[in-house]
């Protein structure tokens, strides 16, 4: 028998949702400051209006749903999944008010793409967008990369024992430190230290590339936020091609890889355990899959004689590949070049890289390296069981921070999530094909959306049908949260309708 949710469930969900909305509203003060600094009056008003609406929404929820109760698992998961939807609707407000998005749906598309660190965009005339709005686009990637709930946990939630439930709901199943709030703050510490270093590196490179000082550091900060959080937005319409710079490409590759590494691994590297990089199953899996997928892409490009020199082929092929594998979506080629020039094999290499993703507890999306490693180890175990005598006890272990014995529950969980991702990639490509796109291109764009990558072969544009836009929004949402909290939300609605 399904039990109908109580009013108290809704009140608890509403109350914590309200607090997270207030937290989101506070982040809007950052673009407000930028608007004042750069003297951008109309964008300033866009953010004042959005901030007011966000606070109003948050206060209404807090007032009407006030409760002392802590969150249970179901409520925690629902708060997370709803937070991301609400963040999309509220985060889209300043974008929509700017007039650079054709419709509110387009602004919502970009807001979800930003929060989910995807990078697909429907912005118009990006080269004339204000500093204020541009910063917001990149800031939402930074917030989304760490996790909207992480922001709330770090700064606005005190002594909440239900915090771990929200933390898990946001696709972070690993605690770095014993306390989840401390974990959240450590994630911010890592991000801010790298932010300072990355912005400095990109800013100085920008100046050496001929950019003015304010522009170099503004671009540096924006590009860092989108690269470290494996997002892929850029302040200019040409993406990374705008800079025409090898050092810029090298630095962004380093930042993208840092963003694709598990925060727990960062913690151990910071603690001086550098050998962990070489022993960890995730870094090993990442190295192998990068090698294989790059080989596929390079062979595909070489067959077509697209790039006349091997070094040029390496520079173009490797950049797009790392960008795809880490789930960033930075491009040094035009979207239509993928369709016109790259050929099926190179595209297949990129699709595989996008589908696999980076490490768990990082800012990347997709299936992720730990799950891939676990599935591979389980396969090895099964092969050994067949080969070895029946009475032999086959034990399989892997190294992830510590030596771990492979358990059936781990394999089951890894397989379920992998299957869910494959289904999500497939469903999106079916919708793409419904609107007339060939299978490979539909699969490319669908995988890019669902794995939160952001590489585009040109399907994503303002003229695409609204249903396809909504499909990609849902894919980005589900892909970022890794399904569980969304399944719980769906279950909640079913219980609401059918429960007794």
């Amino acid at each position: 028998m399904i039990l109908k949710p109580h009013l108290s469930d809704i009140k608890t969900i509403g109350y914590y949702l309200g607090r997270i909305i207030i937290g989101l509203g506070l982040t809007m003060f950052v673009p407000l400051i930028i608007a004042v600094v750069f003297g951008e009056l109309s964008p300033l008003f866009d953010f004042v209006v959005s901030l007011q609406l966000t606070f109003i929404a948050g206060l209404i929820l807090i007032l009407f749903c006030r409760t002392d109760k802590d969150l249970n698992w179901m409520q925690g998961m629902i708060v997370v999944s709803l937070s991301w939807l609400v963040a999309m609707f509220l985060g889209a407000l300043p974008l929509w008010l700017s007039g650079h998005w054709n419709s509110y749906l387009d602004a919502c598309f970009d807001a979800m793409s930003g929060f989910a660190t995807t990078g697909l965009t429907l912005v118009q005339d990006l080269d004339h967008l204000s500093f204020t709005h541009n910063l917001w686009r990149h800031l939402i990637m930074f917030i989304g990369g760490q996790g909207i709930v992480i922001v709330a946990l770090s700064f606005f939630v005190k002594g909440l024992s239900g915090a771990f439930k929200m933390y898990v709901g946001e696709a972070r199943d690993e605690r770095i430190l014993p306390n989840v709030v401390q974990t959240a703050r450590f994630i911010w510490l890592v991000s801010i230290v790298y932010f300072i270093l990355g912005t400095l590196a990109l800013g100085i490179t920008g100046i050496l590339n001929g950019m003015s000082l304010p522009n170099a550091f503004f671009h540096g900060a924006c590009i860092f936020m989108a690269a470290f959080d494996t997002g892929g937005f850029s302040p200019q319409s040409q993406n990374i091609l705008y800079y025409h710079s090898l050092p810029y490409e090298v630095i962004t590759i380093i930042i993208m890889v840092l963003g694709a590494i598990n925060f727990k691994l960062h913690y151990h590297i910071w603690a001086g355990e550098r050998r962990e990089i070489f022993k960890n199953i995730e870094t090993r899996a990442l190295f192998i899959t990068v090698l294989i997928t790059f080989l596929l892409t390079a062979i595909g490009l070489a067959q077509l004689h697209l790039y006349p020199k091997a070094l040029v082929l390496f520079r173009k092929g490797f950049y797009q590949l790392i960008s795809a594998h880490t789930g960033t979506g930075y491009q040094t080629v035009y979207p239509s070049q993928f369709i016109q020039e790259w050929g099926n094999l190179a595209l297949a290499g990129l699709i595989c890289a996008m589908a696999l993703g980076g490490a768990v507890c990082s800012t990347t999306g997709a299936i992720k390296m730990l799950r891939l490693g676990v599935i591979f180890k389980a396969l090895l175990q099964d092969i050994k069981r067949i080969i070895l005598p029946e009475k032999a006890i086959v034990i399989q272990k892997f190294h992830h921070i510590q030596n771990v014995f492979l358990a059936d529950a781990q394999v089951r969980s890894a397989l379920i999530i992998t299957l869910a991702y494959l289904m999500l990639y497939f469903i999106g490509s079916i919708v793409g094909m419904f609107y007339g796109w060939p299978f490979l291109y539909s699969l490319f764009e669908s995988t890019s959306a669902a794995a939160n990558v952001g590489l585009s072969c040109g399907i994503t544009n303002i003229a695409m049908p609204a249903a396809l836009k909504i499909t990609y929004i849902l894919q980005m949402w589900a892909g970022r949260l890794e399904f569980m909290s969304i399944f719980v939300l769906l279950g909640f609605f079913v219980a609401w309708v059918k429960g007794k």
Partner: protein
Amino acid sequence: MGEGKMMNRLQATGYRLQATGYRLLFIACSLQLAACSLCFAQSISSTELISNAAQYDGKTVEYEGEAVGEVMRRGAYAWVNINDGANAIGIWLLNSKLSEVNFTGSYKTAGDRLKIKGQFNHACLMHGGDLDIHAEEIIKIKSGELKEHALPQYKQNLVIYLSGVLLCLLLISLILKPKQTKK
């Protein structure tokens, strides 16, 4: 008779001169047209160039659009990115030709509208395989300018109304704030 012949000769000379004049006029017009076609030939769009990059590779093309972002000087050369409304393409040009570029497009400025004649590279070997144009000639078609951004009245009104609503909500939340019980 003699006078008649003379008249005929004069008439013939007049016709010849007239014909020469027409010829000269025709040549002058042709030259002017040729010059005009050099300056204002039909530009190729960025979409056409990107979609058929292999076909245009190494050829001299004309491309037109707004200079956006920033001029990035690299030694004796510089990069200027030119957006034709659909895409922006990187233009590699000598610093000496930068005198034509005074405004680049951003939030506060409309960039100069430039026409470029140069070699199109599908995968430029000099620039790591980038799709670019190495400019030979650059002409300013329209000068850029500072842009005024008026603040719409509806945004001002919205701020006033929403401030009222927010203030009311804050007051209500203060009134309804649960009293902390002393332990």
